[in-house]
Every structure is written in C-alpha cells, then in structure tokens.
C-alpha cells in the first residue's frame, strides 16, 4: 500500500494529548460544599471579602437551575469534579525554573518559543495555578500591568481589582458564573494605562492536566482611555475518560477611545465541558474585537458578550466553530447597543462533521436610546456529512426606529464542483476538502497573528483527517 503523505500527516496531534503524572500536587476533595470552598479560600490566602464572595456565590449556584436551552450537560457530575489542583511548584518568572515535565508540555505547545518571537508577555496556567508569568521589561516600563490574578489581589491594584471583579459577569448571571465566583483560581489581571499602545500581544495559556478536575481562571483586563491591546488566550488539555470542566470568566473594560482585541484558539480535549463566560463593556468611541476559534471540548457553551455603553463605540466578532465526532458546540455572540451611534458586526462560520453538532446562537439587542446604531450579523454553516447537525438560532431585539439591523445566514455543503476542480489539479479529495474548509475559515485566520493562523489551519486539517467516506 502506498504510504500516505499529506500535509495533514505532518501535524503532530500528540502534542495536545501530553499527560503528566500528578506528582505531589495538592488536590482539594471532589465536589462542591461550603467547607471545600472555605478550604480553597484558605489555601489561596484570600482576603476576607473574597472568601465571603465565594461563599455567597456558592449559595447562588445552589439556587440557580441548570440551563435547559443548550446542549445536555448530564455527563457532568459536580460531585466528582475536583475544583482545585495546585501543581507542586510556585509561579516562576523564568522557564528554566518551571518543573521539567510542565515546561516540556508548554514547550510542545510552543509557548516559550512564541514568547521569544512575538509576545509582550505570557502567563501559563497549569491546572489551577499559574506556573509561569512574565512581562517584557520595555512593556512594563510603559506602565502596563500584567499580573497573575492572585498577585493582583495583594498588589497596589487590589482596590481596582476588587472594584471590577465579577461586576460585568455577576454570580447571579447563570449557574456557571456562580460556580466560577465560588471556586475561581488563577487567571490574569491586565491594566493598560491611558494612551499606551501595546504593540505586540500578551498571551495567557491555560493547560488542564489533572484528570477529573475543573479549571476556573479569571481574566480581568482594563484598557484605559486611548490605550490599545491585543490579548491572546489559548487552552488545551489531554483527553481522559472522565469529564473535566472549564468554567472560566473573562471581564473586559474598554475605556473611552481605547481598543482591545481578544483572540482565542480553544482546543480543549473531547472530555471537556467548556462552560465559559466572556463579557466586555465598551465606552465612548472605543472598539472591542473578538476573534474566536472553537475546536475542542465535548460540550461548549460560549457566547462572548459586548455591551456598547458609550456613544460611537463599536464591536466586531469573528468566529469559527468546528464540531467533530462526539462534540456538541453551542457558540456565538451577544451584543447590547446601549448608546447612540454604536455599531456591531458578527461574522461566524461553523463546520459540522462526523456526527458533531454545531449551534450558532446570538443575540443583538438595540436599546431605545441607541439611536443611529447599526448591526449586521452573518453566519455560515457547512455540513460535511449527513450524520452531523448544524443549527442557527439568532435573536434580534430592536427597540428604536432609528437603527439599522441586518442579518443573514446560510447552511450548505461543499459543492462537488469545487472538489472536482481541485482534484483535477492533482489534489487528493481529502486534501481538496481540507483546503476548501480552510478557505471557509479564512475570516478568522486572517484576523490572527500568522503563527496562530497556522495553528488554526493545522487544527482544521487534523479535524478533516479521515473526512472521506
């Protein structure tokens, strides 16, 4: 048999599946009780207000219902989830000081290399705590603050953090926001001072290694007036035969005239329940851009929300979701126009293959005071076989006549003509289909730094492997 050699084969899938033994890691008991939350709070050395916040959030969690409008999360048994796993290392400022097995994992994921080449700073979280955090000196000298979240609570920015923490996503928002409030651990705090433009991106990478554990990092970013930032978030985990949970929370404050781009390439393992919440508030004349690629997890609920609170603020969401075998990915975006002359553009692509379920879900709300606002939503879905599913659920709520809102959606398949054309140029059918899908995802890849676009295309090619038949 002729040896198959395509560009697909050149990609090493195993890098995402690296598993390290848990050596001397501290594990909280499984489940969710006030005692466990108090124990977690003690382990983390929380200030009193945070301990009380956690306990209050737990109360709210216990009262709120499990959502019944999205994918089933019956396979997630909170009594079996360990909410806190601390690796046996402190946070380091040099990669050489990170334990070898953990460093090797991040090396394989390309994080230290990326940092050297094109990042202004990196935070690397391993299970529940950051193991590495660094900010380039010249960026720090601009006054940019990039701290692990725990340090931020004890820093000179503690009051600022407290003032903003879970105010955009309150624990009452939904059950998993409450869960996050109770057991959050890790994450980052970023403050970009007025007028400072961070030329190259910051990145946080979240790696969940522990079997049966949850990861609940909190990201709080404040981009002050006239400042500019690109923040990249990456995440992955090895695959286990038990459920893992990710219920992170991202709160973004974009001040007057500022600009923030938040890019995510998510590649959780197929046993992950990804119940993540992201929200931004955007002041006058400011811009919020989301770039989102969702490839992994067993179940995802992910809908970054933007509140356009200031006049002439704007948002753009560009996303792609690829749902393969045993995946039910419910993704999309929400935007609230809460001021005059605001604008939003949501542009998404989704792909379903091998029995995967992809749902695009969105909400565009234009308040009565948002006169002169404009919004456009475009979603396209590609079905790669007849055992998969693709749903589109876009909601529009317009409360003023002085707005223009447009929406378009399409569902279809790869045309035989396109595949035939490429095959007639000597490309195999599998590669032809992978090429077409990569082209379909072009809206996202062209918005990413080149190295991340390559990673995304590699993920698509991995997913497309075996798509014939």
């Amino acid at each position, binding site marked *: 048999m002729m040896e198959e050699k395509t560009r697909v084969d050149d990609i090493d899938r195993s890098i995402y599946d690296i598993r390290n033994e848990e050596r001397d890691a501290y594990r909280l008991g499984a489940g969710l009780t006030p005692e466990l939350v108090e124990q977690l709070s003690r382990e983390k050395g929380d200030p009193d207000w945070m301990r009380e916040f956690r306990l209050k959030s737990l109360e709210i969690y216990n009262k709120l219902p499990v959502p*019944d*409008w999205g994918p089933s999360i019956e396979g997630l048994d909170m009594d079996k989830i360990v909410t806190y796993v601390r690796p046996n290392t402190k946070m380091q400022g040099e990669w050489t000081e990170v334990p070898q097995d953990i460093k090797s994992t991040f090396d394989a994921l390309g994080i230290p290399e990326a940092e050297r080449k094109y990042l202004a700073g990196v935070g690397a979280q391993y299970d529940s705590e950051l193991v590495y955090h660094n900010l380039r000196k010249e960026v720090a000298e601009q006054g940019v603050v990039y701290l692990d979240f725990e340090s931020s609570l004890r820093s000179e920015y503690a009051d600022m953090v407290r003032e903003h923490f879970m105010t955009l996503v309150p624990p009452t928002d939904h059950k998993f926001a409450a869960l996050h409030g109770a057991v959050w651990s890790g994450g980052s705090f970023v403050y970009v001072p007025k007028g400072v433009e961070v030329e190259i991106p910051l990145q946080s990478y979240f790696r969940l290694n522990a079997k049966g554990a949850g990861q609940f990092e909190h990201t709080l970013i404040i981009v002050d007036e006239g400042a500019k930032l690109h923040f990249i978030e990456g995440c992955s985990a090895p695959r286990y035969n038990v459920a893992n949970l990710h219920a992170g929370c991202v709160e973004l404050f974009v001040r007057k005239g500022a600009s923030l781009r938040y890019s995510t390439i998510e590649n959780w393992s197929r046993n992950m329940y990804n119940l993540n919440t992201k929200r931004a508030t955007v002041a006058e004349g400011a811009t919020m851009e989301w770039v989102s690629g969702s490839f992994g997890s067993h179940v995802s609920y992910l809908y970054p929300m933007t509140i356009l609170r200031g006049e002439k603020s704007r948002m753009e969401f560009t996303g792609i979701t690829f749902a393969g075998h045993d995946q039910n990915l419910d993704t999309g975006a929400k935007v609230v126009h809460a001021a005059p002359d605001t604008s939003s553009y949501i542009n998404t692509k989704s792909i379903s293959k091998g029995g995967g379920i992809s749902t695009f*879900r969105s*909400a565009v*709300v234009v308040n*009565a005071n948002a006169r002169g606002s404009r919004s456009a939503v475009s979603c396209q*879905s590609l*079905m*790669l*076989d*007849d055992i*998969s*599913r*693709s*749903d*589109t*659920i*876009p*909601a*529009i*709520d*317009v*409360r*003023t*006549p*002085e*707005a*223009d*809102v*447009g*929406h*378009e*959606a*399409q*569902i*279809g*398949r790869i045309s035989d003509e396109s595949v035939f054309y490429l095959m007639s140029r000597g490309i195999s059918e599998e590669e032809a289909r992978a090429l077409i899908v990569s082209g379909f995802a072009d809206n996202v890849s062209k918005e990413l730094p080149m190295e991340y676009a390559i990673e995304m295309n590699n993920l698509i090619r991995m997913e497309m492997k075996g798509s014939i038949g």
Partner: protein
Amino acid sequence: MTEKTLTVNALAAKTWYWLKMNDTAVKVAVPEALPLKLEGAAAEAEPVACVTGMGADLDALLAESPANRIAVTAKAGEKQTARVHLRADAGKTEAAVLTVRAGENAELTLVMDCQQPAGAGANTTVIAQTRLQLEKGAKVRLIQLWLNQPGDIVFNDIGAVCGEKADFALSQIYLGADKVYAGAEIALSGAKSQTEIQQTYQAKNRQRYDFNDNVRHIGRKTVCRIDVNGVLDDGASKLFRGTIDLQKGAVGADGAEYENVLMLGEAASNQTIPLILCSEEDVKGNHGATIGRLDENLLFYLSSRGLSEEQVCQMIASARLNAACEALGDPQAACQVMRFAQIDSPCEEGKEDA
C-alpha cells in the same frame, strides 16, 4: 367565564430566557362557537391529525369548547374555490375549527376573512384553527384576511401536512387587531412538496403581534419560502419566530426565510428569531432579515417633493400593503383589504362584499 392560561408559539429550539422569545403565555376564556358563513366546497371530512403552530395548549382549549367545526374538501382532480367569512360577536370569545382536505391533484383556493366592521364587532376574541391535508400533487392556496378593530384579539393557528409534490401557499394579512397570536406548522412530508408563506402586518398604537412559523422539511427535494413584511408604528411591537427544519432524509431540500420590518414609531419594538435547524448534508438553508427605518435618501427625495415625513411614511406603508394585496392573486380579497385600509384602489364599490 372560565379563563385559562395558555403557552403558545413555542420556539422550535429554546434560547436564552432573558430574551423572552421562547414562547408566549396568554390568558383566554373557553370559547363559544364562532358564527361563520361558508361559500362552496363544503363537505364532511375526517379531522386532520397534525401538529399546529400554536401548540398543544390551544388544541386542549378547543377540545373542551363548542367551537364551530366545518370542513372544506376538494376531491381528487377537482378545482375549487371556497370562502369562509368569520363574523364574531362583540365582547365574546369564539372559536372555529376548519378541516381542509385536498385530494390527489386537486386545486383549492380558500379565502378566509375575519372583518369586523368599525364599532360593531369591537372587543372580540376570535380563535381559528385550520388543519390541512394535501394529498399527492394537490395545490392549496389559503388566503387569510384579518381585518380587525381596536380591542380585538386574534388567535390564528394552522397545521398542514403536504404529500408528494403537493403545493401549499399561505397568505396572511393582519390589520387592526390589538393583539395577534398566530402560528403555522407545515410538514413537507412528501418528496418535492413545497410551501410559500407570505405574512403581512401593519401594527400601530400599542398593538402586539406574536408569530410562530415552522416548516419541517421531511421529504426529499422539498422547498419552502417564508416572507414576512411588516410596519410597526407608534408603540406597536412584534415578535416573529420562524423555523426552517431541514430534517435527516430531506436530501436536496431548500428552505429560505426573509423578513423586512419597517419601524416608524418612536416607541415601536421588534423581535425576530429566524431559526435554521439542519441534520442533513445535501440541503440549502438561508435566512435574511432587514430591520430599520425608512431609507434616508428616499425620505429626502420625497420630502423635497413637498411631502411631509408623515405623508412619506404613510405612502410607503400603503405601497407595501398594496404589493401584498396584489400578491394575493385574488382581486376580491385584495379589494377587501384595500378598502379596509382606506387605500385608493381601482376596486369597484361593493365588489368585495361577501
């Protein structure tokens, strides 16, 4: 008078509760029989078993009411036209259930109107449910004119099952009622069956319209097109739920839905949720929505010709209604609507009278 709380117009796939679009809860009395007059095509017929757009709660309400039940039938190969005039009594809640059967290759045009004369039929609550079965090759055009008065409440529920190559066209015009709850569920069961839904409404004051259209593509090469056009003035509000469900096995199916909402009133509000559900690869599904104000260039152009903004808005709204009337394909029905809306038209006096 016993009042029930119904949950109607449930969205085909739930979404966030905070949007308040998943369904609608409404209180209504158990209805009496709705007076009506049927012209043509009357016949005994077995009830049609099908799902309807408004849902099971309305079925249950009708099951316990003495609703007026009639049947309209076009036998195999026949070509029929029938008209049903619903005339509700002031201040009452009344219901009628229509069964419509079209045999193989039959053609049926059914015009249903519910016109309440000004002052005479105010504060009526009219509940109409129409269940249709279209056999192989049958063509049915159902035209519904809801020409109501302030204080009127309309419940309009439709369920249809289309056999192979059957063709179901549904045209609805809603004017005047304070509240409208309308649902249609159409099952394109047979291969190459098709449906076209055209909904037109113009709401003003504090009127509230609540729609739920579901088209299930079950058979191969089935086709649907949903067009919803409306004008919202003053503090009127509307919620449109539209679902194209491309089910497994519906190979070659093609579904499209388009909505255009012109918002004129300062306090008007519009909610739209157009779903495409898809579990088949070889299909096409499209939807598009345009929601907003009058085109500024058009407004400027017409204003420069001496028209006030109010006159321009009125003219555009009338033009939209006129276009919908022409698309009905039934001059008598078109005239009835235009006279009701007091739009200048070439209709002869009295021609539209039933």
